[in-house]
């Protein structure tokens, strides 16, 4: 296994779960390196002290903080550890919530947690937390400091392990209406008939979510172009677009929706075409209740 990104503990109440953190993503993008035009010489990045040619080793590098009046304060790792000593080692679970209450816009980076240390103790504590999260269908909320940055985290059971996802603070997320480009005027409001048709179209297009059915086509195309250049020394101009790109806004929305519905329903009748999975109704219940409303309903029940 690769090296852990972080070692510490999760604590809830007085229960302590020693864990290690590993990345849950891998970089699959096509990696280029830099070369010098003409000569093809490989390019290296060197760190040098400003105003000199002195190379600076990675081990000699620290974080510098510049104050408003231009003074520089050098912060070593141990200085940063002092800023939040507890949080750099322990995720204190302050709250357990229902997963569906958290809007996905908060989710940032996923990690895996594994038990740390020898012996039965850590493995059993880990398993206890995993089981209790799985059984209660809840998510543990806490904070962590990694790489000089504090983040909220959500810990839950996934694929039999504890999964930790860092979360964006509310203050990091912009209000969509601040873009000034979200239409809200009376004139742009859709009619009931249009919304009914659009909901019907969404329902017709609904399938079960299967993440493995999507491949990165761009990566495939890029690697094919690299191969083409390796063989032929050049890359053909890309073919002209095989279908016209629609750039003009639909004028008659009802007509566009009807046409789409006819097309999708027509396809369905032909043998061999895949019918979108149908499950659950749509549109009957109206707006989805928000998290707080659900929590209130729950509180009432209790």
């Amino acid at each position, binding site marked *: 296994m690769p090296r852990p990104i972080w070692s510490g503990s999760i604590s809830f109440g007085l229960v302590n779960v020693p864990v290690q953190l590993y990345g849950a993503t891998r970089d699959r993008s096509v990696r*280029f390196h830099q070369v*010098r035009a003409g000569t093809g010489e490989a390019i290296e990045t060197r760190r040098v002290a400003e105003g000199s040619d002195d190379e600076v080793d990675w081990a000699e590098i620290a*974080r510098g903080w510049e104050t408003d009046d231009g003074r520089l304060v050098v912060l070593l790792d141990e200085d940063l550890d*002092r800023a939040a000593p507890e949080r750099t080692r322990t995720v204190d679970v302050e709250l357990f919530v229902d997963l569906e209450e958290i809007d996905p816009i908060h989710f940032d980076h996923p990690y895996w947690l594994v038990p740390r240390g020898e012996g039965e103790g850590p493995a059993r504590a880990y*398993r206890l937390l995993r089981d209790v999260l799985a*059984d209660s269908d809840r998510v543990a909320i806490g904070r962590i400091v990694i790489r000089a940055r504090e983040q909220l985290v959500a810990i839950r059971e996934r694929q039999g392990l504890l999964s930790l996802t860092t979360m964006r603070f509310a203050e990091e997320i912009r209000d969509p209406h601040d873009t000034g480009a979200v239409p809200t005027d009376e004139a742009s409001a859709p009619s009931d008939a249009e919304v009914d048709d659009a909901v019907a179209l969404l329902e017709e297009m*609904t399938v079960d979510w299967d993440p*493995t059915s999507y491949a990165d086509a761009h990566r495939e195309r890029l690697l094919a172009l690299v191969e083409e*250049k*390796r063989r032929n020394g050049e890359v053909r101009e890309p073919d002209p677009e095989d279908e016209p790109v629609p750039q003009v806004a639909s004028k008659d929305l009802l007509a566009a929706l009807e046409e789409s519905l006819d097309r999708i329903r027509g396809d369905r009748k032909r043998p061999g075409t895949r019918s979108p999975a149908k499950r659950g109704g749509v549109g009957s219940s109206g707006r989805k209740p928000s998290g707080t409303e659900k929590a209130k309903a729950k509180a009432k029940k209790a």
Partner: protein
Amino acid sequence: MTARSIWNGTLTLGALVVPVKLFTATEARALSFREVRADDGARVRHRRVGARTGEEVPFAEIEKAYGDGSDEVVMTKDEIAAADGPRAKVVEIEHVVRAEEIDPVHYDKPYHLGARDGGAHAYRLLLAALERGGRVGIGRLVLRQRERLVALRPLQGALALQTLRFADELVPADDLDVPTPRKAPAEREVEMAGRLVDMLAGPWDPDAYRDTYRQAVMDVVAAKLEGREPDAPLPAEDRDDDLLAALEASLERGS
């Protein structure tokens, strides 16, 4: 005032065409430090040099290459851009899924969408339909030469677009080597842990959380500026290794 969009294009759902623009939905918040040399605080510059000659190479002379040795291929910007495909400016909604089916680990960078050139009506229609249906549209977007899978969904009365990680970008649990305890937790432990979780359960209120670390770092900066030693870190607290005792004490403390 209108914010600056980072991408202008078109969203399509069947024959419905919605001209849209894309905005970043997040604000940089992390403290931005400078790289300095630890002993004298000298600023550190990154210099691009030829590996063989040690000569500094200006940015304009730098190209991208793939592979190594005799297999190395240099690709120009235009050649790389050719992989964008003909539909680089269109996000076609390929599928529609139920919002709750998407595992959160897929969600990556969030963006806000605005309407463009006469697209307001179609924008509102798509938004209203997604809101009513509790559905998410799935499509693809090429952004900065990377194709991303994207989820289109309603958020706070606007259309939000969030990139999704492809399945092969995620590390499956099976890849990790995790010791299994010989003994499963005792029934009593599980029951008590369940009660502890219930005790600590509550509604999620994202506004209740602020980044407090930033201030803590600023306090250390202030201490160093005044030549004071920052407070020494607390010794790590030793916690009880006895699960059952820890659970009992936690429940007692909370009730």
